Every structure is written in C-alpha cells, then in structure tokens.
C-alpha cells in the first residue's frame, strides 16, 4: 500500500540553487548556441539558403512508376515528364477554351485528306469519302537534347558509352555515374522512332490498341517487331536485347526530310491532333534506348522508366520516388517565350506581366513525397510548399462561401497572402445503370421510367454540398464546361431532372419522381411481383469507414421513393470483375478527359465500346442505334453549328434514356502563396512549370517571419522537470544516509 512520501522519507533542506542553477544555465547555453548557429528556421526542411533562390517547392503523394513516354499514362507521372519531353504540339497556356499551338513544331500540322484512289480531298469532304488522312509535321531546326551520357561521343563520332559489358557497368548505380554527357539536334526521325516504340509490344503502351486502329501499318509493325524481337532474343540469349526499331518500317509514318515527317491515319480522325500534344508522341533518340538496354543497367534501374531524356525546359536530375524528385533547368533548352496574348482578364490578373520573356523562369523544382495530408497542409501553411490542394479536413480553415455561393479565402489565409484558384475540371463523376440488367437496364418503358425517377431523386446538389464542400457543378449532360457542345443556362438544363425557374435550374420535386415510378409500375417503390419494396443493388469498391456516409446518402436518396438500395461493397478488383462480367446493377465511376473534345466523353456511351461485350470503356453497356449513328457522324465534324446540333440530339437521347445519372463536374480548388506567379490552373496541359515564376526573397522573408522557434515552453518543461526531481533527490539522499531497515 502506498505510504505518504513525506512520512517515509523525511525531507531535509537542500539549497535549491545547488541543484537548479546549473541545469538552467546549461539549457540556456545550449539553446543560445543552437539559435545563433544559423539564420535558417529550425523547422525548415530544406538546406540553408535555398528558400531565397528561384526554386519551386511542391509535393507529390503517389510514387510515379513509369517515365517512359510510351508507357506513362498517369497524371502523377506526367507532372514530371511533361517538363522534360516535348511533343510537337501543346495547349496555349492562357487561352480558353483550350486550344492547340505548336511546341517543337514550326507550325500547326498540315492535314490532308485523301480518297480511296489517292486523290486529295478538301477539308469539307464527308468522312465517308476519306480513305486516309496525312498529318505532316515540320520541326523547328536547332532544338537540342538535354546533356545525356547516351549522346556522348568521342572525337571520331563513336559513342563513348556503347557498347558496355557487365563488368563495365558493375560500378554504375545511377546515371550520374557516367561522367561524360553529350547532346545532338532533334530530328524528325526521333518522332518516328517513338511512334514505333508505341507499337513495340514489350513497351506495353496503353495506347497501342487505340493507335493500332488509326495509324496505318501500326499493327503490322507490332507483329513484325515482335517476331524480330523473339528471334533476337533466341540469337543473343539475352532476356532484353535492344532491337533497333529503325530497321523495321511502319507504313503509316515516313520521314520526308530531316525536320519533316508524316503520319498517315486511316479514314478521318480529327481528335488525332490532340494526341500530338501528349507525351506518347514526344521524340525519343534511338541512342537512348540502345544505351539503356546495355547489360547490367536495367537491374540498377538505370533505364527510361527512371531517367527520361528530352528537349524540354527541365531535366530530371534526382529521381527518388521514395523521397524527392528534382527537376533542374535544361542548359540546352531551345528557348521559348511567355505568351504575349490571352483573354482580357489575364492582364488584370497579372498573367501577362511576363509576356515575351524567355522561359523557364525557375532554376529548380523540388517535389517532396508526402503520403499524408496533415503534414502536407501544415508545411504549406509554414510556407515550405509554394502551392497546395485543399483536403476536406482543412477546407473550412482555408475557404468560406459567401451568401451568393461564391468561394473566398478565410481571414487566416488572406493574412498570409495566399491566393485561391478554382476551375471546373474536364472530368465527370457519374452514376451508371448496367443496361444489361433485367430490372434497371434495357429499352423497355418500365426500365426507362425507373431510371428517370431515380435521376430526379438523386440530389447531387446536396451531394456536392455535403461531400465535396461545395466544390462541384451539377452535370446536366456528360459534357463539362470548356468542352465544345456544353450548353450553359436554360439551354443546357436536363428537362428530365430539372426545370428552369426564375433564372436558375431547379431539381424537379420528388413527387414528379414518384409519379414516374408509378407509371413504371412501381407504385410507392413497391415491386409488384413481391409486394415488398423494390430492391436495387449499388456495387462499389468503396468499402472503408470513410465511405460509410456516402453510401448511406445513396440509400437515403432511393428511400425517398420507397426503394431499398442494397450496398454491395467489394475491393476494387472484384468491382472490376463485376463490371467486366455485367453483374453490377448500379455503380459510380468517373472519367477525366484525355483531350478537350466531346468525342472523348460520348465514346463512354458508344455501343461498340460496351464493357461486357467488347471490353471497352462503356461501363453502362449502353447501346442505342440512333445515338451510335450520331456519334459516328459527330466525331468527324469540325466544331460548328452542325456539330452542335448533332451533340444536342445525342444529349437529348441520353437524357431521355438516362443510362447515367450525370452526377457532377468536380471543381478544383488550389491555393498558392503570393510569391508564386503565373499560377493559372490548366486542366489539359501538364507542361506548365516553364510559365511559373517564384520570388525567392519574398518567400524567404515570409518563412522566417512565420517560423520563429518558440522556446519558452521547452524551458518551462525542463524547469518543471528539474523542480520535480528535487524531492526525489532529497529523499534518495535521506535514504542513503538512514540506518539499516
């Protein structure tokens, strides 16, 4: 049993100063020394003096896997390689709607249409008459690659680092272990080489299937190159020998001269021009592939997946996806000037202050891995990241909504000079019905009315408010703002789910949904066959505790109609299986546009793209003869009145048939500090780092002001510890001096 401490160990007077004073002095000396050592903030995660330089600091949360432009198809990878690789075209940084302009191309491609007999057609020719289309691209002369060991040559022109054997590569661990580098001029043949790499099956390019249906000779090349590769493997005994793709021709690509090449597309495919702005069509010097496939390098991750090689404004000098990615200015960059024109508001926003100046403006970009949202957000508030998204946990700390629904920053953000940028994403988050399902799918009147009733009941205005912090716009069709065909205002309202009242779109009342349900034969949500509530199934891969509220919301929406929604939650793999086999009933999915064309959204509902039958992207397995016919017509039309009319009819069919609840278009909210300039969000382009500018001294001053170390609590705690030790020391000494027990 515990006894009173003072009874067991009688206290005696000890001069407190003998114990306390040395401890305080020591602590004070240590802290003074530490604080005087450097001007850098104690919690600065970067090296001293870096903050004042022209360096961009940001973060990434998902480790990139592939930097090979033939393979890479994720936004987190393109954030890096788009600063290194340069396809022939790019998006204008400031213009909206998004428009293409030349990048390495000297001008926009010449597009020529040809009939079956080879005669050239004009650009108004009907798509049915076009047998093939030529895209002729002329590259600017004088563009050079970044310094790279693969391009290092001896005095006689022979490569320095080829051929190498295993012994010579034994000591190599990173690309930096090759001390010599070289460069050469970009030529048209490099673009052709990359197109061949897309077709070469060991590269597993995700667009091989798509391009195989468009580029002439693509599939033949794939077959021929695969066979040649197997022969080479058998002959050399190597697992991954280098096959020189220049030795095999592809009928649809041709080098016209040193700076000009042609791509031949079957029939008409107007959307192909957008692919020319993607990294898949960036150039690849054949020397790089030969270099990287030497023995002993791939095992050390010295390959194209780790070390990209391009002509862009930056080069990737540190690739450590576990910690940090660093891009530095490419000394060989051909030079590009900041755009001199833009929309009227660009000048007011200061986005034309750098008009005509040579880019890039920053010397380095450092991206640190941050797995968790809390440290990422806190470091942004401390000024150690120049920009940041807004997580739902920190949303209220950063953003408030006015009475009119407009978003603005909170006082704490304004005090720090933080700026807010918003943009509706070129994405759609929808809820789909499996049109193969016997209850919700098919073309029967009953199923259609059921879908329409559910479309009214699903209150996505409420969903956006609750789960998206208001960051979204209810979708009235599959096309988001900024995509040709999108209609605004009263013209754009979905009459099935909304009505235009007093200048705004209002969701129809639940009574109207119930009437539709009654017409469908499900009065009060009752299944006439069982007499009980109609039971529908929502299949989802969202199974964690975070999803519980969302799933409960879905159930509540259908409960308004008296329908019972059963949630069938599985992991993502099983969900994918259900979608492929057609056993899902109702599901939610999203799509992020590859390019700003309505074809990239409507193809998600095109019959021959059905997921179950054709393994395509039409997850709802929607099939409507008129819609499909209109799709084929729409995709080849240029933007204009005719195309708009076709799109309007297609949207009308989708609204009537309701294979999707259109859901909402997410709205991206991003924050950046005052020292980070030209931060206009661009949701199609990924190569925007070159436009950004950082005022280093402003950042350094802000970081210093915001991150002064607070030492008094440490002193207080140490003092309390010392004080609390006094009775213990006294009692210890008393015990030591006491007689035997």
């Amino acid at each position, binding site marked *: 049993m*515990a*006894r*009173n*401490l003072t009874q*067991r160990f009688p206290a005696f007077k000890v001069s407190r100063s003998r114990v306390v004073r040395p401890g305080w002095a020591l602590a004070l000396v240590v802290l003074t020394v530490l604080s005087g050592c450097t001007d850098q*903030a*104690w*919690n*600065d*995660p970067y*090296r001293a003096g870096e903050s004042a330089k022209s360096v961009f600091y940001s973060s990434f949360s998902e*480790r990139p*896997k*592939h930097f090979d432009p033939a393979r890479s*198809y994720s936004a987190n990878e393109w954030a890096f390689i788009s600063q290194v690789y340069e396809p022939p075209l790019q998006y204008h940084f400031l213009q909206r709607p998004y428009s293409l302009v030349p990048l390495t191309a000297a001008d926009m491609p010449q597009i020529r249409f040809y009939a079956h007999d080879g005669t050239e057609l004009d650009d108004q020719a009907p798509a049915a008459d076009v047998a093939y289309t030529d895209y002729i691209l002329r590259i600017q002369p004088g563009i050079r690659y970044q310094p790279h060991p693969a391009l290092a040559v001896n005095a006689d022109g022979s490569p320095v680092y080829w051929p190498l054997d295993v012994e010579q590569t034994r000591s190599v*661990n990173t690309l930096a272990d090759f001390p010599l580098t070289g460069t050469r001029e970009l030529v048209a043949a490099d673009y052709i080489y990359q197109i061949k790499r897309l077709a070469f*099956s060991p590269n*597993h390019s*995700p*667009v*091989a*299937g*798509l391009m195989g249906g468009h580029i002439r000779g693509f599939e033949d090349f794939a077959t021929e190159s695969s066979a040649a590769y197997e022969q080479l493997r058998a002959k050399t005994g190597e697992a991954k020998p280098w096959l020189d793709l220049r030795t095999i021709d592809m009928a649809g690509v041709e080098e016209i001269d040193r700076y000009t090449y042609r791509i031949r597309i079957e029939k008409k495919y107007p959307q192909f021009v957008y692919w020319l702005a993607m990294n898949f069509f960036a150039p690849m010097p054949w020397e790089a592939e030969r270099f990287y496939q030497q023995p002993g390098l*791939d*095992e*050390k*991750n010295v*390959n194209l*997946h780790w070390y990209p090689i391009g002509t862009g404004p930056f080069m990737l000098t540190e690739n*450590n996806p*576990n*910690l940090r990615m660093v891009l530095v200015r490419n000394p060989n960059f051909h030079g590009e000037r900041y755009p001199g024109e833009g929309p009227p508001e660009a000048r007011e926003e200061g986005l034309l202050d750098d008009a005509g100046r040579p880019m890039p403006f920053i010397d380095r970009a450092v991206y*640190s*891995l*941050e*797995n*968790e949202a*809390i*440290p990422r957000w*806190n*470091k942004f*508030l*401390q000024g150690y990241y120049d920009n940041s998204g807004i997580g739902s946990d920190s949303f209220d700390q950063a953003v408030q909504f006015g009475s009119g629904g407009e978003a603005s920053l909170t006082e704490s953000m304004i005090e720090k000079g933080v700026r807010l940028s918003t943009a509706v994403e070129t994405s759609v988050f929808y809820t789909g019905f499996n049109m193969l399902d016997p209850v919700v799918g098919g073309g029967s009147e009953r199923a259609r009315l059921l879908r329409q009733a559910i479309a009214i009941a699903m209150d996505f205005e409420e969903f956006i408010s609750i789960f998206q912090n208001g960051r979204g716009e209810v979708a009235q069709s599959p096309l988001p703002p900024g995509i040709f065909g999108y209609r605004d205002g009263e013209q754009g309202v979905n009459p099935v789910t909304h009505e235009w009242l007093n200048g705004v779109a209002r969701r129809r009342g639940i009574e109207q949904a119930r009437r539709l349900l009654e017409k469908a034969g499900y009065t009060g949500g009752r299944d006439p066959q069982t007499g009980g509530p109609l039971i529908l199934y929502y299949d989802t891969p969202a199974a964690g505790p975070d999803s519980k509220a969302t799933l409960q919301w879905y159930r509540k929406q259908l409960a308004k109609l008296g329908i019972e929604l059963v949630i069938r939650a599985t*992991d993502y*793999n099983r969900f*994918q299986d259900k979608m492929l086999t057609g056993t899902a009933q109702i599901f939610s999915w999203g799509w992020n546009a*590859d390019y700003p064309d309505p074809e990239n959204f409507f193809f998600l509902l095109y019959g021959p793209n059905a997921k179950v039958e054709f*393994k395509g*992207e039409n997850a709802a397995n929607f099939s409507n003869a008129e819609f499909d016919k209109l799709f084929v017509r729409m995709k080849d039309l240029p933007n204009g009145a005719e195309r708009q009319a076709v799109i309007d009819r297609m949207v009308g069919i989708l609204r009537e048939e309701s294979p999707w609840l259109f859901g909402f278009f997410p709205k991206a909210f991003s924050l950046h500090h005052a020292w980070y300039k030209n931060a206009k969000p661009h949701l199609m382009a990924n190569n925007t780092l070159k436009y950004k500018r950082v005022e280093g001294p402003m950042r350094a001053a802000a970081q210093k002001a915001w991150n002064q*170390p*607070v030492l008094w*609590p*440490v002193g207080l705690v140490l003092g309390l510890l010392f004080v609390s030790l006094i009775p*213990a020391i006294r*009692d*210890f000494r008393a*015990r*030591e001096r006491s007689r*035997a*027990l």
Partner: protein
Amino acid sequence: MTAYIIRRLLYALPILIGVNALTFVLFFVVNSPDDMARMHLGSKRVTDEAIQSWKQDHGYDRPLLVNTAQQGAAVFTDTILFEKSIRLFLFDFGQSDSGRDISHDISQRMWPSLAIAVPTLLIGLAVNITFALLLAFFRATYLDFWGVVLCVAMMSISGLFYIIGGQFLVGKVLNLVPISGYDTGVHAWKFIVLPMIVGVVGGVGAGTRWYRTLFLEEVHRDYVRSARAKGVSEHLVLFRHVLRNALIPILTGVVVVLPLLFIGSLLTESFFGIPGLGSYTIDAINSQDFAIVRAMVFLGAVLYILGLLPTDISYTIADPRVRLD
C-alpha cells in the same frame, strides 16, 4: 553449440518455405494476375492483349499452384509459386512488378529505417530503464503508484496520436523541427529528432511498466536482502545486483528485435515522410506488387529467425547455467 547453431539454421528452411507459401496463398486469395496487370497498366484503355502481354512478361501467365497441362515435376515447377519462390532462397529478389530492382531498393531504404529505429531503441531503452529503476526505488509509495498510472495512460494512447500531436506541437506550434521529410547524410539529423522523440515517448509507458516488473521481481530475492544486510547502499543494490540480473530478459528482448529494426515502422515512416522499408512494404501492398511483398515478407522472416539465434546464444552468455543442446 555448433551443432545447435547448425540445427537451428536447418530448421529455418521449412519455416521459410512455409512462410513463402502462406504469403503466396494470402496474396493470391485477394488478387489475381489479371488484377495485378490492370493495376500496373492503369485504368484507362487497358485491353485484354495488354493484360496478357504484361502477364507473360512478368511470369504471371502460368497457373498459380499446379500446372495440370505439364508432366512430371513440371506440374509443380512450371507454376507461379515455384518460379517466384525459388530465387528467394538465393536472396535474388529480382525486379518489382513495376520494373525496379528490389535488392537495390532495399539497400537504399533500409538506412533511413535504421536511422530512426536504432536511436529510438537505444534512447528508449535508457529512458525506460531509468524510469523503471526510479519506480522500483520508490516502490510502494505514491510516486510509484502515480508513475504506474501514468505509464498505463501512456500505453493506452494510440501511437498515431503521438505522431500527429508531436508534429503539431513540436513542428507547427513551436517550430522547432521540420514536420516531415528526410535528407541524406548529416543533414538527416533534424528529421530524425521528432520521430525519435515520438517513438521514445510512445514506448515509455509499456517499456517502463515491463522493466519495473522485472526489477521488482529481483528486488525481493534473497541475494538482494543479503546485500542490504551487509550494508550495501540502496543505489548500489539496484545498479550492481538488481539491474544486472534483470538485464538478462531485457537484453534478450532487445536482441530479438534488432534485425527487425531494418523493416521500419509503417506509421512513423508514412507520416514523417521517411523513405524506409516500412512504407516500401505498404506501398507494395497497395499497388499489388507481389514481387516486393514476397521479398519483404521473406526478408522479415529471415531476419526474425536470425534474430532468435543470437537471442538463444546470449542466454548462455548472460547466465552460464544455461546450456544449449
């Protein structure tokens, strides 16, 4: 002793085979090679041909466990299990399913894990022993009572709370150290301080409680009473007699943990942005990279087996009465 060591090492083989088989079964119960291919190829425009090609390139186009299309031994050897497992026993971890060299990744990532784990272990050991000795010295007093209460309270708090609280208090409010991140070489020290403090503080409750129990067991023994009766001062009784005997179970507990320091702590590394082996493993699980998962499980099993062997040997050193047969 030599025979014992050899026997223990031979026991390791069936254990490792069993661990490997169990990992394989558990992984492929929830993931199929098609799922893995889709995960690596992305979610857009993935064709059946691309999936088959990926599986073929990575050796996942064979049957999982038994190949009924083959004859003889090939029924078992021409399978994913055999092909993926056999090289493990030669410590050839191969490449990850995303094409990275696993051995190279492990050799890079183990150092940050060790940089956190080793000082945390050593300082935590010193702190826990000190507090436990204090509580043993002031046993049966209010100091002891409230000390135990505090230890239980600290044990009850989730480690995640310490991490988030530590980051908020020390990194954000007091601005004393970076909230997260890492650097190489000597620059790493400021990133290690906070995870180390959090690790030590988080382990104080459980460690002190346990060590206190060990010390109290020794304190009531006859040899301690004899020492007191001979006039040995209390602090010498504790440090020279009690501590030395209580250190046997303490040290053997530490020795078994030593190899596992390489594996790192998942939560700590994830929140502090430490590029260690803990986050390496969980990233692999999330991305369904079986090559990394099997390598890390195998490595963990080997390290654990290797850790137990010195533990048993250290018993004989600490207590000469113990014999290993």
